[in-house]
């Protein structure tokens, strides 16, 4: 499989923040990643893919939490297989795992204080400054004394995002950061990511194609442990050009069809339904078409 460069220029490739080559990972008989090649630059890159496609495995390898069976990774020119370089990477890393674990007795501030120490912020005053800063960033200033177990799902997710921002990392690896957030919180999250200072490398996985379209200049579609697409959201949407129609009736020949808000049937397929009108494809259409093609393989 050829290398897919998300930000395609040669110079960008030379200076790429993250380079991954031939990355493979198996869990027993299950092939989670299969010879993945990828180059990421500064800015936000969205990972799209169905459950079990390999997104979480890819992210956990980028976050140095997991080891690949084969392949090479360079993050800011550093090799995570070498202990000293792995530590250097971790000093620049903010990681939001899919399931944030915390001890039941932790308060919000206590938890962030703990993570700040793990990020080598040892001085008590500096820790407090960082805790205050990230709490303000996610709009949780008054929540320091609250026990985490008493927070709603949305606030827990905000706290999870807050801990990833401790130490102002250069590489943010976020596994489904918008899961559990309501619409307003998702919009706030988009705003937060877009306004982060220092132009860090941000890789986030999501099931929400509209999140990708809204904030990610680059998108990578992972299917079956392989990269099925890498490019801009517009380019992903364009892959569905000529394959999306709206009609008043459902057409069985379509790969997928559903009734939209205007009570019209939206079809994705190879043949236009009778009496249909060609529709402008969205990122979601492009992703669904790719998923369908991937499913057939």
């Amino acid at each position, binding site marked *: 499989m050829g290398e897919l460069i998300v930000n395609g220029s040669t110079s960008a490739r030379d200076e790429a923040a993250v380079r991954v080559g031939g990355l493979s990972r198996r869990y027993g008989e299950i092939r989670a990643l299969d010879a993945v090649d990828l180059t990421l630059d500064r800015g936000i890159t969205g990972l799209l893919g169905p459950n079990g496609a390999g997104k979480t495995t890819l992210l*956990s390898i980028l*976050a*140095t*939490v*997991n*080891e690949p069976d084969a392949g090479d990774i360079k993050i800011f020119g550093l090799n995570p297989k070498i*202990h000293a370089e792995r*530590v250097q990477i*971790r*000093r620049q*890393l903010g*990681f939001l*795992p899919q399931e*944030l*674990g*915390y*001890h039941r*007795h*932790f*308060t*919000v*501030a*206590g938890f962030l*204080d*703990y*993570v700040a*120490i*793990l*990020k*080598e912020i*040892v001085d*008590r*005053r500096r*820790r*407090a*400054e960082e*805790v*205050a*800063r990230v*709490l*303000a960033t996610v709009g949780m*200033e008054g929540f*320091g*004394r609250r026990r985490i177990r008493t927070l709603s799902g949305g606030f827990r997710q905000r706290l999870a995002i807050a*801990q990833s921002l401790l130490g102002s990392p250069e590489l943010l690896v976020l596994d489904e950061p918008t899961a559990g957030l309501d619409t307003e919180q998702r919009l706030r999250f988009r705003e937060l990511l877009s306004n982060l200072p220092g132009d860090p490398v941000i890789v986030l996985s999501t099931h929400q194609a509209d999140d990708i379209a809204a904030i990610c200049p680059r998108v990578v579609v992972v299917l079956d442990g392989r990269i099925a697409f890498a490019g801009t959201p517009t380019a992903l949407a364009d892959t569905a050009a000529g394959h999306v129609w709206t009609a008043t009736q459902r057409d069985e020949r379509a790969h997928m069809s559903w009734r939209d808000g205007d009570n019209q049937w939206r079809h994705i397929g190879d043949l236009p339904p009778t009496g249909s009108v060609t529709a402008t494809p969205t990122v979601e259409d492009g992703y669904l078409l790719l998923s369908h093609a991937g499913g057939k393989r």
Partner: protein
Amino acid sequence: MTPELFDGPEPAPSAGWHAPVTVLASYAAGDLGNTYVWSIEAHLSDCALCRGQLSVHTDNERLARNRSVVLAMAAIPGARWPRRLARRLGLPDHVLVLLSATSSLRRSWLLSVVAVLGVVTGESLLVHALWPHHAGIAAYSEPAVLAPLLLVGPLLVLVGVAAAFVPSLDPGYRLAVAAPFSSLTLLLVRAVSALTAALIPLACAAVVVPGPRWLPAALLLPSLALCAFALAAATVVGPTAAVVTSGAMWALPVAWLTVTQSPLESVEAHGQSLCAVVAVAAVAVVFARRDRLEMRWAS
């Protein structure tokens, strides 16, 4: 900065002297030395006019930020007596925070350990008290009464240490692994603390049971060897498998000795020698394969 204090003409005083505007501005910016800060603050507490002047120089954003930091410092736990005591004993504050995220150092865990040891000890005492009346045998010469404590004691210590490093028992381990703080240091700090915390009640139980006087000391080395073996084995197999293997390596011989000879033999000279060899070898393996231990912990 060492400004001339209280000698400027402004703000125009009606009576007495006032702090110059430049000094108030330096004070608001946090640029004054401690001596001057104390002088200014003593003056400000009595002078409404200077307080009014000071408000002009305050940076509201900075004040809000400082307020947030103060609130965060107040919200961060740390005032309870065990932590204050540990701090006085010289343990760094950040290490105490790290230990607070160790399940086997929580009160509920330690109480469970004490409860189990209480049951085992109580059972030994009861058998010891009743046995001579019915069988005419001195309990001291019947070491089988010690079998439950000998079997359970080191295993309790092992489980406590396991809770400090087995990922499935640490809800926040992924964050710990992805952080730059040395996973090995974190793991060892937790393991040693959990080992110490579990050994204290075990030693107390060993003092209470009707056994030889050297029993409390004799339980230390087997406990240490089991924990070290579990850590060493975790560099080769998964942490859970390592702990189970280590536990089996203790439980099976003790059970066998109880049935065939005497459970006390597990902590007598031969048993201690074997434990010493295992402990030294395990520590060497942990040191040599520390990188594997860290990555195994992660995977």
